[in-house]
């Protein structure tokens, strides 16, 4: 769901940039407070993994393909929505500047959608569901699914404001496509979190212990 430069006027892109700079500042503060020698490799490896997974488009029928976005993955595994803002911002900068995947003036909007909205929706959906269901895979899957769908609807709204998409038709098409792509997001996120927690249970702060323990 990388928006290209041609889809949003420069002045609107500038507004998203200003908004996202607030979140990036908070994400840098998160990194400063929370990073330690142990978590550092996880953050960097996640960035590399999310970059690679984002290049892997899987067909989802209807002449459309989709790939993992990774906001829920980063936020859940590092225990903060700002982890998603931090990692997705860096990944999107590399993608936009080097590979033309997502525009430059619209990068603020892309970071808001995938990093900020994806991270916050993913993190708080996971926390809420984990409290209710106590099921890690179920909570992760649904959180990741929503963290794919809601950013897509946000992008659709931004593109309506930009005059690029009509409101209803855009929302319906984006909603249908990303509801299906979200299943990929869910499955890959569950798998990745399972692998990382198995390899390094000490690094992960998912609240799973308190939920299953006493």
């Amino acid at each position: 769901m990388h928006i290209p430069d041609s889809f949003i006027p420069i002045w609107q892109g500038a507004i998203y940039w200003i908004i996202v700079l607030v979140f990036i500042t908070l994400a840098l503060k998160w990194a400063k407070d929370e990073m330690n020698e142990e978590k550092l490799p996880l953050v960097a490896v996640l960035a590399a993994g999310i970059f690679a997974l984002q290049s892997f488009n899987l067909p989802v029928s209807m002449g459309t393909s989709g790939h993992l976005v990774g906001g829920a993955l980063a936020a859940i595994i590092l225990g903060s929505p700002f982890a998603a803002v931090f990692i997705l911002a860096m990944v999107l900068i590399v993608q936009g500047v080097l590979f033309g995947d997502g525009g430059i003036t619209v990068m603020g909007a892309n970071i808001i959608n995938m990093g900020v909205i994806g991270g916050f929706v993913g993190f708080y959906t996971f926390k809420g569901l984990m409290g209710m269901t106590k099921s890690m895979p179920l909570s992760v899957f649904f959180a990741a699914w929503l963290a794919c769908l809601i950013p897509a609807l946000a992008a659709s709204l931004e593109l309506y404001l930009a005059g690029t998409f009509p409101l209803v038709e855009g929302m319906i098409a984006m909603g249908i496509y990303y509801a299906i792509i979200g299943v990929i997001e869910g499955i890959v996120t569950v798998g990745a979190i399972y692998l990382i927690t198995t390899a390094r249970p000490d690094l992960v702060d998912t609240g799973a212990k308190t939920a299953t323990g006493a």
Partner: protein
Amino acid sequence: MDNKTFIIIGIIVALLIGVVAVFMASGDPDGLESTALVVQGQKELTGGTPENAEIHEETEGRFSYSSPMPDYSLGEQMGPLGGIIAIVLGTILAFFVVLGLTYGIRATRPAK
């Protein structure tokens, strides 16, 4: 698993995913591009994407930028090898940008 092993295995897994993606990834438009084709009347909502479908891009008053490796490729003549080089570079760069930035931020923290 210690930090070093975790990093090495993590990077290898990421690189493998990226390299496999060069050969296996679907060339169909993503959800956003599909939606653009639908609202521009070039594609049915639930139908396949026609071969000649092309997204109309507004250029008037819009920023335009030419990236060094557009579409994760080094151009037609380089083929899949160019794709692999692009993905490997991007994956490693993503790793080092985040690692470097995180180290940089930590360095600004007052010593305890």
